[in-house]
């Protein structure tokens, strides 16, 4: 399956640059020092509360930085009806936060009203493509905007799958006309666990729909790799990020750290590596965000790199 040839220039929101996941231990430093981070990603469910510190800091930091919302409980692949109460809360939060975009995962988390609180893989079948795409359309209609779906790490595959994960991702996003949050670490983790070449993934994922990139670390157990988000981004993932940018051009990128959270300064320094790689690959690190969102610019940058 090849990427859609749909014209994409109007699909993607403006490029944001290099961001970090906003985490509780860093609230005060971010607010006081206003570090040179281009944007922050916030975990939607953490702020679906009435008030208190989480909402205070969200509002204060949102006044100073662009925010994007990232959720884990949409359960877009579930065969349960869409959870409208959840979606109403999500929409209310979005109205308050005014995020540049909203993302969740291409997975299922709950069935029969029971939440596993895990990002469980879907079978890559045409039935699932139609099922998920229909639900994404309903969500997008309800929210009044395109959403991003993130590829998840997986540790098993299903006998009834009819295509590869990357073909499935493209098919759902084309059918639903939604965007992609490409988690480079998840590609690496799944590639190790399933024995595929991660470049096969990157070569086929539809570049016209990739709005955001996640970078993260994992736990390597030799025979398998677990997506723990509690380590620094390892070299193998940085290498894959380099390959990703070669293929996609500039895409808003961020480091996602969920466990064993280091100091803000350490994360900030780690983000510097993403900037360095982007500058190395694309040579346009300093280009203002307002001039960097058009995919054509990315293609041009890649061509220029190729000429060099």
């Amino acid at each position, binding site marked *: 399956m090849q990427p859609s040839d749909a014209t994409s220039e109007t699909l993607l929101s403006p490029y944001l640059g290099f961001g970090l996941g906003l985490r509780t231990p860093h609230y005060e430093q971010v607010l006081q020092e206003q570090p040179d981070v281009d944007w922050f990603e916030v975990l939607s469910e953490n702020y679906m509360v009435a008030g208190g510190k989480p909402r205070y800091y969200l509002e204060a930091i949102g006044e100073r930085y662009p925010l994007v919302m990232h959720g884990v409980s949409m359960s877009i692949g579930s065969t349960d009806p869409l959870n409208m109460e959840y979606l109403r809360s999500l929409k209310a939060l979005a109205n308050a936060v005014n995020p540049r975009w909203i993302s969740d995962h291409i997975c299922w988390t709950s069935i029969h009203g029971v*939440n596993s609180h895990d990002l*469980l893989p879907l079978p890559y079948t045409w039935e699932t493509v139609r099922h998920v795409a229909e639900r994404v359309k309903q969500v997008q209609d309800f929210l009044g905007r395109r959403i991003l779906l993130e590829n998840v790490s997986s540790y098993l595959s299903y006998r009834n799958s009819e295509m590869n994960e990357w073909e499935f991702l493209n098919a759902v996003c084309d059918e639903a006309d939604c965007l992609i949050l490409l988690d480079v670490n998840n590609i690496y983790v799944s590639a190790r666990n399933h024995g595929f070449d991660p470049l096969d993934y990157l070569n086929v994922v539809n570049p016209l729909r990739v709005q955001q990139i996640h970078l993260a670390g994992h736990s390597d157990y030799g025979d398998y790799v677990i997506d723990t988000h509690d380590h620094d981004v390892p070299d193998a993932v940085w290498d894959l990020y380099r390959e990703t940018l070669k293929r996609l051009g500039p895409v808003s990128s961020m480091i996602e750290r969920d466990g064993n959270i280091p100091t803000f300064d350490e994360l900030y320094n780690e983000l510097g590596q993403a900037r360095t790689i982007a500058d190395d690959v694309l040579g346009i690190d300093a280009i203002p965000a307002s001039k960097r969102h058009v995919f054509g610019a990315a293609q041009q940058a890649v061509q220029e790199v190729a000429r060099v």
Partner: protein
Amino acid sequence: MSELERLQDTMMRYLLQPDADNEADCLQWVDDQHGLAAPQRLHIYANAYKARLREVIDTDHEMLGLYLGDELFEQMVSGYLAAYQSPYTSLRQYCDRLPEFLRQDSFFSQYPILSDLAGFERRLFDAFDAAESDRVPVNALEGIAANHWPILKVRFHPSVQLCQFQSNAVESWQALKHNQEPPAPRLGESRYWLLWRNQERVTEFSSLQYWQYRLMAGFLNGDDLSQQCELLLDTFDENETPGQVFAALQAWLEMGIISHFS
């Protein structure tokens, strides 16, 4: 039932109860791949399910965990996971029924202080992320006309939580929080506590006397000042009561926990 629904139903049954039968059902769906065997691949998900919920209990109920010690904590986690699935989209709510579990479980119910400890920790969360609202300034009582006093009603800040415990759970929580040995359990005597979030968004708590608890509970119930003064006549004489109530109102204003007078 569609093929996708059957798959998800089978997988969820396995996650909730990863026994041999449910694993065998699940394996019918799981591909044999190079490297890790299919059962091991399934185990990753089963382990993650339990580990994630265990971590939530551990994080949200840190002092309860210290009070129990490792062995009993694991017993509580296993029992709670078996008794309560999560219908929630946020893990913030997963432990909401932990006090109920500790009150009803045949083993843990022998130690009522445990349910109180868990209940206190839940109320701390409720105060932490309750809605924000205005706080009436400390001199607000000066502006109330004399003829409005009898019908005065109080609306508290949404973070205000009233608790009644039958044990010294809060004193034990405080000791553990300060790395001290908790006192021996004392049961049977009612103790009253007020929790709230202050203007710096820090959660605070304070013990209450019974009449203070009743006074707050009455205002929370929508009663007016005259009803409240009448209620307190079994504690104070009629000359003393207005002064006590006024002092309580002034203290609440200084604590910043009154959102509105009506």
